């Protein structure tokens, strides 16, 4: 009897949309956390979309090739996706940290190089990945058998390992940046590299490490699409999620905990059109209106945040986007 009641509640629109918000928000969360790490060290990386796509294609390739049993393959695929994303970020890091290139243009270059018309699509074709479903994909775990508990069950307990991994990342990054000595050093590098340098903190090393770590997280974020949401390889499958992640960091005032909130908010916007379609609601409104929702909401949210924040510069690392040249202080 209780389970009947529970399934009634759990099939309600609100619970479904919250559950899907977590599903669709997870790639955004990984990518936004990665971008946050890079930006807190002072490096703006606009190549998130490209790094996600390369992570997605390489993660998918790993699952198809290293077919050694479900969870091992999937874990290996995440490692491959992270390495691929990290390598992409390394190009950006070299250009902007060592060669002091313009961070905005270099990030755009990374998206063009790796993105939907570039390396990710080249690799997908060359490794012959399209058209097949993933051999293994991340499935809901039903933790402690609590998946049927009303309301919180499907939202909190019936999620995949990726979701729990992302929560661990939020916690780890929040503690790292807020409560540890190395985290403090990173913030110093992002706020005032000259001061950090004078204190003996390696500005270049910190920036390299955090840009590459950010790329690794973006790669995992991309793998969320090819190993869970879609789950197959389609060229350009992220559909702008990388850019939404960049906007999320601004929206979250460069704080990991707020990234979580923002990611699920935008996850809900992405899930909405599918759920409305499944229910047959609002069929009179063109589907494009709902598909455009995450993009339009990104703009709306950015305007809301930037007008107020511009006055106080809430949270933005002071040295964001500025190359550090010791000789030219």
């Amino acid at each position, binding site marked *: 009897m209780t389970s009947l009641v529970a399934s009634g509640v759990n099939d309600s629109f609100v619970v479904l949309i919250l559950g899907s918000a977590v599903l669709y928000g997870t790639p955004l969360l990984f990518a936004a956390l990665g971008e946050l790490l890079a930006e807190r060290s002072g490096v703006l990386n606009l190549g998130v979309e490209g790094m996600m796509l390369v992570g997605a294609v390489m993660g998918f390739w790993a699952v198809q090739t290293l077919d050694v049993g479900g969870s091992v393959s999937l874990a290996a695929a995440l490692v491959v996706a992270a390495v691929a994303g990290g390598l992409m970020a390394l190009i950006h890091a070299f250009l902007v940290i060592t060669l002091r290139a313009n961070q905005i243009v270099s990030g755009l270059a990374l998206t063009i190089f790796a993105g939907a018309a570039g390396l990710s699509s080249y690799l997908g074709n060359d490794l012959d990945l399209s058209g097949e479903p993933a051999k293994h994909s991340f499935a809901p775990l039903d933790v402690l058998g609590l998946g049927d508990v009303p309301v919180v069950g499907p939202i909190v307990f019936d999620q995949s390992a990726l979701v729990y991994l992302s929560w661990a990342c939020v916690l780890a990054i929040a503690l790292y940046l807020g409560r540890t000595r190395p985290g403090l050093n990173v913030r110093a590098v992002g706020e005032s590299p000259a001061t950090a340098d004078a204190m003996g903190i390696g500005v270049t090393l910190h920036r390299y490490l955090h840009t590459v770590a950010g790329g690794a997280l973006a790669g995992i974020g991309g793998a969320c699409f090819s190993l869970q949401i879609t789950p197959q390889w389609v060229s350009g499958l992220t559909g702008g999620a990388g850019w939404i992640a960049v906007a999320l960091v601004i929206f979250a005032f460069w704080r990991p905990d707020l990234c979580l909130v923002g990611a699920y908010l935008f996850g809900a916007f992405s899930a909405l059109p599918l759920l409305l379609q499944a229910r047959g609601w609002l069929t009179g409104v063109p589907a494009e209106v709902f*598909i455009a929702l995450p993009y*339009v909401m990104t703009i709306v949210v950015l305007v809301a945040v*930037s007008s107020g924040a511009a006055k106080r510069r809430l949270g933005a690392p002071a040295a964001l986007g500025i190359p550090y040249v010791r000789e030219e202080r």
Partner: protein
Amino acid sequence: MRFERRLVQPRWLSVAVPIGSVVVAFGLMAIVLLATSHDPIATYRRLFDAAFFANGALTSTLVFCTPIVFTGLAAAAAFRMQLYNIGGEGQFYWGAIAGVGIALYLGDQGVESTPVFVVAMVVAGMLAGAAWAAIPGILRAFFKTNEIITSLMLNYVAGLVLTYLIIDSKSYWRDLESFEGQTFPLGKSIPEEAKWPSWSLGSVLVPLGFGLAIVVAVVLWFVYSRTRFGFELQVIGDSQQTARFAGMRLRRKIIAVMGISGAIAGIGGASYEGDFAYQIDPTGLQSSFFGYTGIVVAALARYNPIAVVPVGFLLGGLQNAGYTLQGADFPSGLVGVMQGLILFCALGGEVLVRYRLRFGRRVVRAERPAEATP
């Protein structure tokens, strides 16, 4: 290795570095090709043959490069003032929508003169592109909203508008009468008189849009380097604070520059329709990535409008070759990788223009007191 800032940037370097970066990019691409077991020399031979030397190759390269020169000029116009309008893609779509819309309308009104069509399409495309670009411009000017993200998000929205007009509605742009149009969603073709003329130079057909692109490039160069407006833009680009102290109106300039940039991309969209496509094709438009390629062109041309034309011609050739050769043995995405590599090399090469590289240890070390070094 260390960097020394150059006090004077030699002129020849600003030409040599982009050329060098293209060469280096081709070298790096060869490594990518080798790593994925393709023969680089054979691939390059086919690439250049399809782009420039084969029968009719130059004609189709000109068709491909015209939109890229327009989006390149659009990007150069904005990037030069440190306004990163990456919405060229969406502004281009709107130029196409408005251009086709006005051509269809005038056709229905019985207009038969080609010059009227051309002028109307250019003006409509220009206005539509400028209006779409004004959205991130106004948001940037009044709310300081990051124009990179807003202009990019609007690309996706413009793409959805294309899909809606042709696939998901019975709009004015959709062909609902012909047999093909009833079986498969298709755009309505513009009238025969609305198709833009082209000049023949020997065996090469030069589309009207390409000539127009050169005119726009010259006008843009003149405005940016020979007028007061252009001077003010340069000051704003170099230092917003200086500009504000000098009493320049920042907000107006930001919106004006975004508008100009969008207008140029919009003309590009109209010329693409008038020269080549003749109807709205949502997948064709969205899979060409003209707007993003424009950014590569602008950066490689170092935001110089005149240089955009030859650079656009080169990258248009690559794009054309990629399109002609696509198939199993010629991996798709290769052209995008190539463009990304060229852009990386151009950015890395920029360091050579600004700095002088010195190898070896610092001489200053010797003057330090001995006890300072343990």
